[in-house]
């Protein structure tokens, strides 16, 4: 049996959105009158794959 209590809570609540990535989706929600909180996401280690691997091995990338 799936627990759907939290989904029913969402359906009853005021929507507050955290937007990760492109600002465009946050702006589109604000235009509709909803609250959008922006996370200015950047890839780990600036997108540098080699550096990400090294950091992972060193335990520095979470």
């Amino acid at each position, binding site marked *: 049996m*799936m*627990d*759907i*209590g*939290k*989904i*029913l*809570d*969402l*359906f009853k*609540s*005021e*929507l*507050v*959105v*955290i*937007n*990760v*990535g*492109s*600002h*465009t*989706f*946050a*702006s*589109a*929600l*604000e*235009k*509709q009158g*909803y609250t*959008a*909180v*922006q*996370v*200015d*996401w*950047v*890839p*780990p280690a*600036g*997108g*540098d794959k080699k550096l990400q691997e090294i950091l992972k091995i060193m335990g520095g990338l979470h």
Partner: protein
Amino acid sequence: MAIYVKIEKNRYIDSLQTLFTTALLNDHEGIEIGYVNMANTAFKEVLRKEEMLLPEIEALSDADFVMVARCTSQKLFDEAVAAINKDAFSVSTDRSGTSFRTIQEAKAGHPEANICTIAVPGEYVLEEVVKALDAGLHCVVFSNNVPLEDERKMKELAVEKGLLCMGPDCGVANINGAALVLASINNRGPFGICGASGTGIQHVAAILHECETGISQAIGTGGNDLKEPVGGLMMQLGISALEADPDTKYIILISRKPADSVLEVLLKKIGSCKKPVVVFFMGCDKALIEKHGGIFASNLDDCAEKALNLIGKTFSLDTEQEIRALAGKIAEGVNPKQKYLRGLYTGGTYMDEAMRTMEPVLGPVWSNAPLKSQFKLENSSVSKENTCVDYGEEEFTKGRPHPAIDPSVRRPAILKEAGDPEVAVILLDFILTPPGHMEPVGYVLDDIKTAMDMAKAEGRKLVFIGTILGTDADLQNKKEQSEKLQEAGVVVCKTNHTASRLATEIIKILKERA
């Protein structure tokens, strides 16, 4: 026309944002064609093909950011860059002026937040979704190119926590009245939709809106949810939630045909559901759906109609007889040399539906994504006989946004097709959504008028048929967009299926006449 460039070293802009920004750049006065991206190898390749790869761009690294355009003057290019920096890159913050670097920080700053939209490159999606779910947030994942095993993992975690994980590859979701990602703005009402096809959800919801009813919630599961490795986890959770939701009186399910094992699970769920369930699983057997108590729908229009019937309403579409009569009237005055149609689509689902409507009557339709592989166009910019082209396909969107956001990718095709003396009908679709282009019709209106005038001057009658996916509540307003098309002489049809039926009948009449 010279090439101008603006470089910013060591500035990261995510890929989706660069696509939206490219759309803004291409909209600016004086810009013939422009691109915005990180200076990675793939982007340099795109610029090389466009003969825009200046030596200073070639010398850049992946960590550098570039705006480049063919433009009429340095002044106009500088103005475009300034406008983009102001409009697209002004950092969105919360009311206290704080900007957040991570989901955890944002949730700590806004404990009332309850849902998270995620649009990051596919390889990073799993870790961001896990962070959001761990923070107790429901998720809408727009990103695509997420491995199926990652999708399975994030959905198992979501189910375990009792949270929604809509997507990956979720194009459309409406929660509590908000249009998320690329959805339309809809009325609220008694219908809860759960679907794996974004366009399908948007189409049915728009018809419900037009008939003065609406949706309680629309849960987009993402296109891969009903595949074997993912097991329909989100559609199962969605059905359970909609069944328990007091504001949802009826449930609508929309998808391509699910994998057999997934279909079996879903049919059981439909069978035990206490609310009426309208089911459109493309290509699924009617008897099978009905045996499990579902209300069978044969296509998207029928899906909306079956839902409306539940509340004693109906969506009046043109009858076959009316379509034939209108086609006969439109075909009058068409030059005998004009005998083909050209469909220029921004929505792949719509092109697919159109070709399935056309082929049984007209024979094979050439396309960049044909129904049968032997009718694939060698060059998508060179049409043959009856042709449909999807401008949302990857070949057109490499380094460019989807045409719903940046319609410039489809624009040149209108005058090109209109210049072909054998073309009688041009079909166009337009998609409305809050992040989309604010004037999708206005953007091509001059080209449509020029095309009609050009044809007339050459003794031809060119027929334009258009459809608009969206609602009057959308920021672009469907009614206003539709009126602009009609004023220009475009035949506007209520649905994509009707538009393709009408086009098919016109071509059939012209063929018989010849």
